């Protein structure tokens, strides 16, 4: 195990983490993964700690994953959902933060539609804040669980060729994954229709290509991204049918990746849009492992942040 202590109050962005800190999260997650395999899936690590799950955006998977992680660590957790639309909500974000602060939680897990909100919150509360997704900016625990999954399958991150395919412009998963994989020395290629590619994509430190085959040629990891059909009204591509023809991952196309390449997807999947069912369910797919690992990684993050608070005398 890496000989470093966790110092950070919050987990807001992968960019705030060093390679050693990323290793520490992944190593800690390894030791927590075993808990989920026990008949009694609970340890007393966070007993007496209060965790608030503050979700301003609908989320099933991430929220359940955090909730299960919290319960398995024996924390007292509370869910709070709201709309992040400034027009609908009656309370300003600052007031929400002040109210939460008054309830003295130990940790706050926040998902919000607007980038930067977890950071705003972290500046105003003494609780540790975990970013569970903010706008299209970041989703650090997703990147950590993806890295954990890759490391489990490949034994390392350094030197791997990773392809990410789909809506690069609007994906927070992509941004956090790029930051993490670049820090750990992997080589990232992104691909998607030009209308879904951010203008200055290469400044993210990746190679950008515009064909699926080119992106996944020789790849160790193929990460398919969800096409956000709810954004469809903005006409990023002509039709789902044409999208699948151009950028859908089929068994046939997967042949250009390495023979032992793994296929990932952050979910929820659109079968037949970005990924064919036989690939999603096939032997190379580690999509459900990602979900299982998500719980262990989130347990690790909750544990490390609450430990940092204890050391700081909080």
């Amino acid at each position, binding site marked *: 195990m890496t000989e470093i202590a966790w110092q950070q109050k919050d987990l807001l962005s992968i960019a705030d983490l060093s390679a050693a800190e990323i290793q520490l999260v992944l190593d800690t997650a390894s030791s927590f993964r075993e808990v989920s395999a026990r008949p009694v899936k609970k340890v007393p690590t966070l007993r007496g700690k209060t965790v608030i799950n503050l979700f301003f955006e609908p989320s099933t998977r991430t929220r359940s994953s955090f909730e299960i992680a919290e319960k398995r660590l024996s924390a007292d957790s509370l869910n709070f959902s709201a709309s*992040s639309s*400034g027009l609908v909500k009656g309370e*300003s*974000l*600052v007031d929400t933060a002040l109210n939460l602060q008054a309830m003295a939680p130990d940790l706050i897990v926040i998902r*919000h*539609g*607007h*980038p*930067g*909100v977890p*950071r*705003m919150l972290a500046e105003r509360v003494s609780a540790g804040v975990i970013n569970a997704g903010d*706008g*299209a*900016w*970041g989703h650090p625990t997703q990147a950590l669980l993806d890295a954990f999954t890759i490391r489990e399958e490949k034994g390392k991150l350094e030197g791997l060729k990773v392809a990410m395919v789909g809506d690069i*412009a*609007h*994906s*927070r998963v992509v*941004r956090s994954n790029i930051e993490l994989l670049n820090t750990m020395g992997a080589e990232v290629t992104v691909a998607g229709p030009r209308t879904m590619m*951010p*203008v*200055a*994509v290469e*400044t*993210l430190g990746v190679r950008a290509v515009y064909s699926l085959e080119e992106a996944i040629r020789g790849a160790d990891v193929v990460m398919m991204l969800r096409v956000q059909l709810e954004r469809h009204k903005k006409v990023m591509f002509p039709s789902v049918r044409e999208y699948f023809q151009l950028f859908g991952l089929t068994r046939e196309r997967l042949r250009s990746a390495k023979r032992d390449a793994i296929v990932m997807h952050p979910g929820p999947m659109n079968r037949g849009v970005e990924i064919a069912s036989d690939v999603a369910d096939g032997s190379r797919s580690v999509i459900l492992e990602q979900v299982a690992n998500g719980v262990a990684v989130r347990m690790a993050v909750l544990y490390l942040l609450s430990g940092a608070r204890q050391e700081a005398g909080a």
Partner: protein
Amino acid sequence: MTLLIRNGRVVDPSQALDETLDVLIQDGVVKRLAAAIKPPGKAEVVDATDLVVAPGLIDMHVHLREPGFEYKETVESGTRAAAAGGFTAVACMPNTRPVNDNRSVTEHIVGEAERHGYARVYPIGAVTKGEKGEELAEYGDMVAGGVVALSDDGLPVANSEAMRRALLYSRHYDLAVIQHAEDPTLGPDGVMHEGEFSTRLGLPGLPGAAEDAMVARDLLLVEDNGGRYHVAHLSTARSLELVKLAKDRGLSVTCEVTPHHLLLTDRDVLESGLSTHTKMKPPLRSEADRLALVEGLADGSIDVIASDHAPHHADEKDVEFSLAPFGIVGLETTLALCLDRLVRPGLISLSRLVEVLAVNPARVLGVAGGTLKEGSVADVTLFSLSRQMTVNASRFRSKGRNTPFDGWKLRGRPVSTFIAGRHVVV
């Protein structure tokens, strides 16, 4: 009433003047400029040793928010901010509530300025009724009420036919049409400049092309229809290229830039931690754009520096970046920023600064001032090149504290203003 401003460095590009002189003012007008004028009996004497004496500075792009948004700013608080910042006059944009698209609103603003003003106030009337971009407002009536130029600022005149009519009809009154150039259909959800940093932050972008496209269209319309056209807060290298081209073709075209577009870039959005004080329209652009603007300022292709003073209440700005209103204040920082960051490092001369802050705004608006020639109105700004200041938003005279420059240490600052020879006490 007689006033003698003694021993100051008189910088007046309208008469190619930069030398130590005395300025004698009588009955509100500049009477004489000469070395060692003997003060007439009963003259008030102001010692301007080590100070610059300039024609009163004019900020031709501010939002005074009155009527309708008095919680953000009033004519009184806004003009106090102007005076504190070294300005003797401001031109205020019509996006109030109700919109200044008719004479009664114009007269209300003029009246407030007469009763409570610390600076001259020149109202800018709306180009179209309600700033809706369709029907022309009553230019003639508004001019009778005191309007000096036209703009739908905050919004573009997006409809080409409306713009064409505005250019044609404004010619009857020789009014500048000031365009907030932004194609609203390009980058409709944008909250910052589209480029490297919007990519990194995952924020929807406002492409430079949205500004360039509208400037290009307008210049074509000016070429065909005449009119005096002024680009508000020009922010991209390419728009500047277009303006230069139009000037070369002899069109009556001018443009302004803001201090923030000359000093900050989209990188500051990221580095400020998504501070809403880096959110305005047009957005902070790329470093290449910024450098082009500084160059355009130095080579004379940019005519005016204006602050686009846009006060908002702290509660409105202290929200999620994407939800915050666009705009920052500027009246109390513009002069000091320009002195410290443009003149002191030698990017532009002092005389050029006075030209873009006083001479040219007066010319574009067609108002008195912008000169200290004998016989002209005695609006004067005194400022220091050596005195230092630290920007402290909590002590602004403006109601708005929304500035990205809070805490900046600047050398060079305003000292006092005189309107028609009267010392303005803020």
